């Protein structure tokens, strides 16, 4: 399993648009991917689960992946969050 922790920095947090970008990216990997934040762990391929966490700016999240492409998956998703989903 590969893991990485980062903080959400884009102004609006993970709203619908960033959430859908995130899920699309996550779904392109074979590994099982999860997000951990605020003491909860959810499936990173579920837009509903991700949105229901209410990830606003400043929330710390841990992305973990388990499977054949786990390293790539974690790196790509962390990059996306760190790039503020292309906002600003």
């Amino acid at each position, binding site marked *: 399993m590969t893991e990485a922790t980062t903080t959400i920095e884009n102004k*609006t*947090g993970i*709203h*619908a*648009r960033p959430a*859908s970008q995130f*899920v*699309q990216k996550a779904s392109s990997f074979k590994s099982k991917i999860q997000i951990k934040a605020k003491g909860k762990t959810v*499936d990173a*391929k*579920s*837009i*509903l*689960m991700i*949105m*229901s966490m*209410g990830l*606003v700016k400043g929330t710390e999240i841990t992305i973990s992946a388990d499977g054949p492409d786990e390293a790539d998956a974690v790196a790509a998703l962390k990059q996306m969050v760190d790039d503020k989903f292309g906002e600003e």
Partner: protein
Amino acid sequence: MAEKMKGKGVISGVAVGKIMLAGQNLDGYLKDYKPKKKADEKKVAADALVKVAANLVKTIEDLNKKDMKEQAAILEAHRMMVEDPAMSAAIDEQVDKSGSAPRAVLDAYESQAQLFEQMEDEYFRGRAVDMRDVGKRIAKFILGIKEPEIGEGKVIVAGQEIEPSVIAGLPSDKIAGVILGQGSTTSHAIIIAKTRAIPSIVGVGDAIEKIADGDPVIIDGDTGDILIRPTAEERASYDVKIKKQEELKAHYAALKELPAITTDGVKVELVANIGSPADVDAANNYGAEGVGLFRSEFVFMGKTDIPKEEDQFKEYKAAVEKCNGHLCVIRTMDIGGDKPLPYIQVGTEENPFLGYRAIRISLQRRDLFMPQLKAILRAGKFGKAGIMFPMVINVEEFKAAQKMVEEAKAELVHEGKDYADNVQLGIMVETPAAAVMTPILAKYVDFFSIGTNDLVQYTLAVDRGNAQIAYLYNHFNPAVLRLIKRTIESANKEGKWAGMCGEMASDPNAAILLMAMGIKELSMSAPSIPKVKERIRNISSAKAKEILDKVMEMEDGNEIKAYLSTIS
């Protein structure tokens, strides 16, 4: 021959278009649905998810081609909600419970919607609507109900009940008319139709089930007539009326930029009643010079918790900005036991209209009132705002409210937030007690706005919804006219201003009387503005004064009504 139906015309005008069925109630379909074994139902649901997602992909491609990026993005989010791995598991679980695929889909998205409604962030709470929309879309697919499509040409939206989002979500130049099965004239769909002057008919009853999607239809909002699949002759018989309507529309459009001023130079401000910031755009199209009544209820309805200052601020700011420097009067919460909300526990009352409501609640619930006052004060910075308190019956209530406004300002200073210091404070004069006390109240307030709908009801002790005594409901009743005159004169005497935001303000004959009494502002649903303006522009204030003097001598409301109808 066309198939004919009749309902109650509530918004005038003739409309021609194709039927678009909306807001179907799925109950009947669900009852008729024959579920198979649970394993089969799970497969039905899973297949539906795949097909609905595929249909959405096609629609999204089309929208992107037409450069409708906004709508495409919304549907893209819907598509992901359909394909969400968490949902297929939740649906299977629901099939185990109810045994029916369409019901399971509805239930699964409903519980997801409820989860979102409890969230703190306004944006996420708003997504509950999308969840329900998606659930309904899939259930309809399983039940074999086609999605309404807007093709070329105009549509007449029809349904037993229509969700307000359906009308709000369609481009306004696409909707020619509205037909509702149920009879309420105050449903949200009708209120939205009113601000856009869309011809509408309600109370068609179960006959509405006979109307099919795509049927060509003519509706007459004046008579309540509905003609389904009209012949060429029937269509032609409406040509004269439609032509006249177009001419009148053009004539009114020409009035848009002109002021409401009498032939001898007395000016009255004609402003709009609105229910949401978006209504200001429509109001501006009718030449409204600001907003005389912003019903803030929509900020409170459908919420599970007290609306936050920040969320309210955004709405008020949008409305104030759209008024382009004209005054925007925002009425504070006017809710009571008739529309219970989870965060306002009113309890059961025998007569909610004489009960714990409006300002009576606000003054006792600091947690509710403060965020609203602070949000309005802050919004005032972006133009010109006024705060209006509803249901006031005495001076003490106004003073208490005024004191809370001062406290709200102090809190804003403390929090380092910017606010406008020139926000006007006024009351709605809608109780006989307030009208009688206006000579005293006028010393304290900045303005009065006469709410005739309630003032007539409370003064005459007549419930206007009661058909048996509806004949008694008359805003020209001499008792009512005296209270109105007193209110306007009290304001003018103290150098304050009086306006009106009840339905009476949209009656051109009443407008003449009110102007002669010295009213400064008339607030109404925007489509009424041109006809009132036309009446004012064609009369002198001297002549209006003559008419008023005559009216004030008359002893009976019906006599006054009859007299006024002869002079127009």
